[in-house]
């Protein structure tokens, strides 16, 4: 069974204090690993897709990386508007459509 585990559950950073969020996963075959941002009362907002180990994607202050067992979301010099829950999710290569989500990391950036 596909599993996604995210850590930490919550993270509090000072504005400008860089850090990383972890997503460890088990899957029989990876079709894609996704990062989403979710604001309170909203749906997940797509950030990145990673397809294979060694791949990296960047967007503004965010950078996502992938190994065969983990993905990291690095946040460089975060701002208060980066405060949100960050969700990691994966899709299995076995022809399945569903995406399996982790429980998320709730990030708070303090001015």
């Amino acid at each position: 069974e596909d599993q996604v585990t995210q850590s930490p559950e919550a993270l509090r950073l000072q504005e400008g204090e860089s850090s990383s969020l972890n997503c460890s996963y088990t899957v029989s075959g990876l079709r894609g690993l996704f990062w989403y941002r979710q604001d309170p009362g909203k749906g997940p907002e797509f950030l990145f897709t990673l397809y294979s180990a060694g791949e990296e994607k960047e967007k503004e202050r965010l950078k996502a990386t992938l190994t065969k067992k983990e993905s990291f979301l690095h946040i460089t010099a975060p701002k208060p508007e980066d405060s949100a829950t960050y969700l990691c999710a994966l899709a299995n290569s076995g022809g399945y459509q569903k995406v399996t989500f982790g429980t998320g990391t709730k990030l708070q950036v303090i001015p």
Partner: protein
Amino acid sequence: EPEVTQTPSHQVTQMGQEVILRCVPISNHLYFYWYRQILGQKVEFLVSFYNNEISEKSEIFDDQFSVERPDGSNFTLKIRSTKLEDSAMYFCASGGGSNQPQHFGDGTRLSIL
């Protein structure tokens, strides 16, 4: 930027009643999905829909649930004989291809009384 829209944003229903949640996916997308998120828990897959039929469903998606694409723009989730434990946020998502990321709407908060 194109987006997935869902209505209503909040639905309150008596236990045992039927509800229909509505979604307008991104216009050129071909794959459609429903997920739910119980308060404080993770987002869970319910069903995927492609080429006018269900392509995959989870164990949550039992006979109480059904989906339909009644026309070229809408995608609906029907829940018959609602139960208290059906209370959750229900998210619709759409994707341009099986390997493309899924884009989510802002959800319908379903409250069963």
